């Protein structure tokens, strides 16, 4: 077990980026599922939101896959995750609320990228005492090694990595806002 919140190796980074790809694939597969299930009955605003929700992850995946490739690792096949997501929908109707499901997807992706940036020593938008790993851990001292992670050398250009993750995170934040706005308008 390690208390270190730092991401300092190519392997660790590649694995986390793969998890990012999986989360993106889950957003895409969920949007595709809801669209296919309710094609005729969808409100135009919800349909437009799902269309964007299905398109954006593909762009994000491509950017993440390029980074993963530079780290000499493989990305994760969309078809595999899509099948797992579909199996879950078939087994459990708890995800039938389209907008709520979409909101959870976007929020999770946002949280993931924000935590990853923190773990990379980028602390520009953290949630303080919420358990976000890294320098803001309220039980700090152990593992909150911002200096160490800031100096970590990866096979991928650090500035490009951070810029990519920041941009994706900010798009996820905008996605959360879009879903929330739509939910409020329909309340």
């Amino acid at each position, binding site marked *: 077990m*390690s208390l270190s919140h730092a991401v300092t190796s190519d392997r660790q980074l590649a694995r986390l980026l793969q998890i990012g790809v999986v989360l993106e694939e889950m957003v895409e597969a969920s949007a595709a599922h809801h669209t296919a299930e309710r094609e005729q009955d969808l409100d135009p605003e919800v349909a437009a939101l799902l269309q964007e929700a299905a398109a954006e992850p593909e762009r994000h995946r491509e950017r993440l896959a390029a980074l993963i490739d530079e780290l000499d690792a493989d990305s994760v096949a969309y078809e595999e995750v899509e099948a797992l997501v579909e199996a879950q929908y078939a087994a459990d109707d708890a995800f039938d609320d389209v907008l709520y499901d979409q909101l959870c997807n976007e929020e999770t992706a946002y949280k993931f990228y924000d935590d990853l940036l923190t773990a990379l020593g980028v602390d520009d938008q953290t949630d303080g005492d919420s358990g976000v790993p890294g320098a803001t851990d309220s039980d700090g001292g152990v593992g909150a090694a911002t200096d160490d992670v800031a100096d970590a050398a990866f096979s991928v250009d650090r500035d490009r990595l951070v810029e990519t993750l920041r941009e994706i995170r900010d798009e996820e934040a905008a996605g959360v806002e879009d879903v929330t706005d739509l939910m409020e308008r329909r309340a």
Partner: protein
Amino acid sequence: MNTADQYLKAIYLIQQVEDGPASTGDVADALEVSPASANEMIGKLETRGLADHEKYTGVDLTEDGIVRAREALTNYCIIERFLANVLDVEEFRVEARSLEAVIDDTVAERLDRLIDRAEECPDCFDAETDACALLDLEEVGAD
């Protein structure tokens, strides 16, 4: 998973193996920190009502501490099982340990949708092998 949850999980697992209080030394060893750091954090857990610490016997989790430790262990199981079953990572235990601090509850809960986890989770977690006893280790990384 934040630092406090990692301590709670470690203490919980040590208590399972020892069938009694966890010594500060064992907690420090499990988390690869100094006994002084472990003592400090155990003091914080005690202040928060999550643990009871007796100087010569060790630390016992309170009921609230056990609830949180089990939640943390469940999240850890999700990470292990996700690495093993979805990403087909052979060294899923080592990697889960290196990633658990970066994967928070929200993300673990989402990844949980992609895996088959037994209803008895986290009771199926084997502290000795540091993995779910129901996880088919032979199939992991076979592809």
